């Protein structure tokens, strides 16, 4: 049968779609992404609009209740989720890209000048507490958009990726097929692309998931401090408003607990995908 052949050729894919953690993670993640995509279309309200009586617990009209000012929490969450996902996507992509390039280059030229320089830079950025650096950068930028936020979050998120990719490159570099390419005088760029990068694909994918998680967590932290994008709504901002209005003391758990819970569940789901894929790519872990 053609089907059997297909699975034989794509063994990793087979293990991926039959891994419980991957299935669970992908389901939850897709559900939350769907919430971000379709939520704003489904909801009859606008996130800034007065949607009904304030101080209402979750009900049929207001699925996640209303804020003290009578805004619909569900609407705020789905719009905020959109913005937060966008920032995470942009920042995660930029940070992974920087980390990959720096890691590749310094791993490939290990022990030489580019490696020493790049690793010193990496170590410096690694030590600086990123959120405080972000705070100080954001505090002095009076107008911030989603792109600005993504760039400053990414600027501090890349170092660990660079280090991890570097060590991965180092271990790949000493493999025999790389030596073979080298003695056949293949150009450096081709060795990097065909021998090293191609073999790191699975690793890069998992790095990207972790970067996405990390950048989302730091951008939500910034938003919570009121240093997110200056316009629009985001999950961090919803929570900041809730804290500013003392929502918990007023017993309005739906305003604080629900938005954060959705975010946390999304990050958990991505971790599950990541761990599941780890088991797929490293058969040794599959036994557990």
């Amino acid at each position, binding site marked *: 049968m053609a089907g059997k052949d297909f699975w034989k050729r794509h063994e990793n894919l087979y293990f991926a779609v039959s891994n419980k953690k991957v299935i669970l993670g992908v389901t939850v993640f897709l559900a939350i992404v769907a919430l971000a995509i379709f939520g704003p279309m489904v909801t009859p309200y606008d996130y800034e609009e007065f949607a009904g009586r304030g101080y209402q617990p979750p009900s049929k009209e207001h699925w996640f209740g209303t804020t003290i000012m009578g805004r619909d929490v569900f609407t705020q969450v789905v719009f905020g989720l959109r913005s937060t996902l966008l920032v995470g996507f942009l920042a995660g992509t930029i940070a992974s890209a920087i980390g990959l390039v720096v890691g590749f280059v310094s791993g490939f030229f290990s022990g030489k000048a580019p490696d020493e320089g790049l690793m*010193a830079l990496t*170590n*410096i950025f*690694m*030590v*600086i*507490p*990123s*959120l*405080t*650096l972000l*705070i*100080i*950068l954001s*505090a*002095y*930028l*009076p*107008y911030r958009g989603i792109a600005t936020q993504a760039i400053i979050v990414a600027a501090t998120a890349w170092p*660990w990726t660079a280090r991890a990719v570097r060590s991965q490159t180092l271990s790949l570099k000493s493999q025999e097929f790389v030596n073979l390419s080298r003695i056949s005088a293949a150009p450096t760029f081709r060795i990097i692309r065909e021998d090293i990068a191609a073999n790191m694909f699975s690793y890069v994918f998992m790095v990207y998931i972790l970067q996405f*998680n990390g950048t989302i*967590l*730091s951008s*939500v*932290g910034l938003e*919570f*401090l*009121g*240093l997110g994008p200056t316009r629009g709504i985001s999950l961090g901002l919803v*929570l900041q408003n809730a*804290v500013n209005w003392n929502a*918990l*003391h007023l*017993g309005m*758990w739906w305003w*604080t*607990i629900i938005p*954060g*819970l959705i*975010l*946390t569940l999304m*990050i*958990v789901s991505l*971790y*599950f995908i990541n*761990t599941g894929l780890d088991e797929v790519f490293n058969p*040794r*872990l599959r*036994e*557990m």
Partner: protein
Amino acid sequence: MGRYLTRKLIIYIITFLFAVTLNWAVPRFAPGDPIKMLLSRFEVMEGGKDILESFFVKTFGLDRSPLQQYVGFWRSLFAGDLGVSISQYPKSVFNIIRGAIIYDFIILLPAIILSWIIGNKLGAFSGVNKKADNFLMPVFYFLTSSPYFWFALVISYVFGIVLGLFPTSHAYSATMRPGWTLAFIWDFFLHWFMPFLSLFLVQLGGWAIGMRNMIIYETNTNYAKYMESLGATERLIRNYGFRNGILPQVTGLAISLGTIVSGAVLTQMVFSYPGLGYLMVQAIKQNDYFLIQGCFLFLIIMVLLANFVIDIIYMFIDPRVRHSYSGEV
């Protein structure tokens, strides 16, 4: 041994230089001209003219070249002069920070150390016990995925508001007078508990996951299988795995210090716990630029020192580092 520490020290010194330079450069080159804003705010304050004379001319030295300004900035830094706070005028930034930093130590140190130790133990337990693993792993993932401030809010809601066990903000009650009385210490402890607990729990998950994976990896290595074939007890093999797994965890601690400190900033904000993080956020709200910069600088110094301490510890627990750099092997 010396070479290892020297290498590390050089990196930290460069980082410090970088941080100070950033601290100097950001307000000068950021859009919106924060310095002009500062000047206009000082002018309306009582005695503000003197401040302009003494501090601005010395540190900002707006009439001098950027290089001279930069040198002046370092000079006043070493004199312990971080400027004057605008929001708590006329207190100096240095004195404000000195009063706040104790609160950072008091929640960060126990939270970091305890969560690291307990997290590693729990992770090792989860790594060898499949039944416990199925239950504990999702919990660990949930903890490590929670944003620090949201988890702090959950803790605050459950223990502070629903159960009413702990006060939800500040370091001690307004009616209390600080002192070594039993009543004050108890009050202080009650206020301290929730910020500590939320920092502790969020970190716990990460350490446990790391150690669990290390143990699974180690028990599959050749040496572990060899020991097994010799008839060593499972407990002994596990202990060897634990000792090997602990090294990457120490490195991991050094790497995540920055994140933890950032988490503490957010946690303090939720509980209005008056450490550097809370101070910094208040300073941002009031555009108190000197105070923001002072907090930033001290947070970085804290992280650098902690990193250095971990490097020294690492040297003692990893014989390879000890020997390779002292030439004993």
